[in-house]
């Protein structure tokens, strides 16, 4: 009896050690992640406008909060007057349409591949598995030439279109839908007289929420920080996206740069995929 108890305490001790190790590693990583903000708050050095400061941001804020807040306000005003505002608008358009388009189209395709029995279903599934391993950036030379031939350089839509069709998003959504899909539900909806699009919008989209949330975070941050395609396709000042313009202008409010992806994450975080046995790779 005592031996068993002894064994159990050894096991518990080992568990405790593992738990502590996990927490320590996590806390270290968290500190490293938050370090940009910590450094921004506590270091003595250059400010965003390039002047030397003697005290850190935090000290200054504590010393005279009102003055600091006014200063931030002035920075915001300066930002609104600078060309960065236009680029921010461009970025919002590009990222917004990319995310909405990519998510809706991918969900549609995943549903079409899962719910219906049709001739080329297997062929298209295999095609998606094959092409999803090709990085999108690889076709950009051909794409650039195509846009140039069409005379559509400096057109925001041309940045949006190639990111809308993303095989890897389709693959993930299909994998998720296969695990959660029930044919009976769709059939009963059909008997109730719902149209196919209505079934998709009202039944399947809510069902896919976790998969959409997971993909949306990555889609959003990728599109928001993308500098490759916008830099080669949007040359005029008034069409620059924020990610590109950011590296050109002096006024760089970091908070405006990082806020949109973080807000997008906070909306999606609750729904991130968890606890669903994802379907098989094939078909």
């Amino acid at each position, binding site marked *: 009896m005592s031996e068993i108890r002894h064994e159990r305490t050894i096991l518990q001790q080992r*568990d405790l050690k*593992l738990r502590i190790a*996990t927490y320590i590693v*996590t806390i270290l*990583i*968290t500190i*490293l*992640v938050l*370090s*940009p903000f910590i450094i921004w708050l506590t270091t003595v050095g250059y400010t965003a406008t390039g002047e030397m400061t003697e005290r850190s941001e935090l000290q200054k804020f504590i010393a005279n909060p009102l003055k600091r807040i006014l200063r931030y306000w002035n920075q915001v005003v300066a930002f609104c007057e600078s060309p960065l505002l236009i680029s921010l608008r461009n970025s919002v358009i590009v990222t917004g349409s990319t995310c909405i388009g990519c998510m809706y*189209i*991918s969900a549609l*395709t995943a549903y*079409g*591949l899962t719910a*219906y*029995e049709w001739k080329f279903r297997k062929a*298209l599934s295999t095609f998606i598995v*094959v*092409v*999803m*391993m*090709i*990085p999108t*950036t*690889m*076709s*950009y*030379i*051909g*794409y*650039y*030439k*195509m846009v140039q031939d069409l005379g559509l350089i400096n057109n925001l839509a041309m940045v949006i279109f*190639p990111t809308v*069709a993303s095989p*890897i998003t389709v693959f993930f959504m299909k*994998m998720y839908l296969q695990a959660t899909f029930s044919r009976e539900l769709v059939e009963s909806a059909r008997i109730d007289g719902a149209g*196919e699009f209505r079934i*998709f919008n009202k039944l399947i989209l809510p069902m896919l929420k976790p998969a959409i949330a997971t993909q949306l*975070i*990555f889609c959003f*941050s990728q599109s928001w920080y993308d500098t*490759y395609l916008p*830099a080669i396709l949007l040359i005029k000042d008034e069409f620059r996206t924020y*990610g590109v313009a950011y*590296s050109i202008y002096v006024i760089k409010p*970091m908070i405006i*740069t*990082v806020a949109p*992806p*973080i807000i997008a994450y906070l909306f999606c*975080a609750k729904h*991130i995929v*968890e*606890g*669903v046995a*994802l*379907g098989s*790779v094939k078909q």
Partner: protein
Amino acid sequence: MKDNRNHIARHYTKWAYIFIIPFVVAFLLFNFYPLVSTFYYAFCDLKHAGNTDPKFLPSIGLPLFKNFAEVFNSTSFKDALRNTFVFWIGATIPEWILAFWLAAMVTDRRLKIKGRWLFKTSFILPQLIASSTAAGTILATISSVIGFIYVAAMIDGFGYTDKDFEFFFSVKFLVIVVYMFMHFGITFIYAVAGITGIPVEVFEAAEMDGADRWKTFFHITVPCMKPIMFFITVISVIDGLAMVEVPSWFGLFDTSRKALTLMQYLQNQAFMGSYIYDRASAASVVLLGLTAVFAGILYFIFLWDKDEAKARKLRKKELKALKKAA
């Protein structure tokens, strides 16, 4: 009855085509056609900005594989090729170990670790604040830590000289660290999603049979999360081969281009000043070939069904025997 049902199902199949049209059209027009034309440009003469007239190489009396020869002869391409693999493998191995270990720990039933959302949020944050400034400050932290160790070692001796630490100050090492740091959250989130999808009973059974964590992980968790493992690997390959952002942040410090990756090479050749589209296309095709090799490897690891292949072989043999008999 069954016939009727089939008839109804057929009635609905037209909707499948309607649903997939947007994706197929968008993909073929904006991804696939450009890819094919890139392939064509690799065998063309297409230089200078604004040139919209590709000439097929043999038609102007030049060897067909001229662009490929140029690509393989340039030293910066070789550097880029080597760097890409060094960065990718160097970052992926520690990243996976860390991500899968943490994912296994966080989801372990016996450990009962709380605050999973906090883990996720903090691990995904680098992806969310991926701007160059934020990454620069992350870099500053890492290099100050390295510098601290360095100074401590220098003061105390320990038998080390500054030569021993050279690697830790190189741009390559920092690229690996920052890339791993940026990419770690993605792997973690998908790994947690995969592990939590495995039914609890399986783990309980393993526990009953006295399997320790190590065995449980390799013999139960990994085989059970095969689909998501495939997904994680594909993402790792795509992001690794197309790595361009992290090394480009080091542009200021990397004047001798020690951290050049394939994608950066491509970008430099085509768009950033050179406008040598044909050579860049050839480099793209080489990259495509590499991707195809990896895709093949992944296919054999994850999708190749041994039993199915055997069954197919057997069926063929039987058919042959039947034919012979007939």
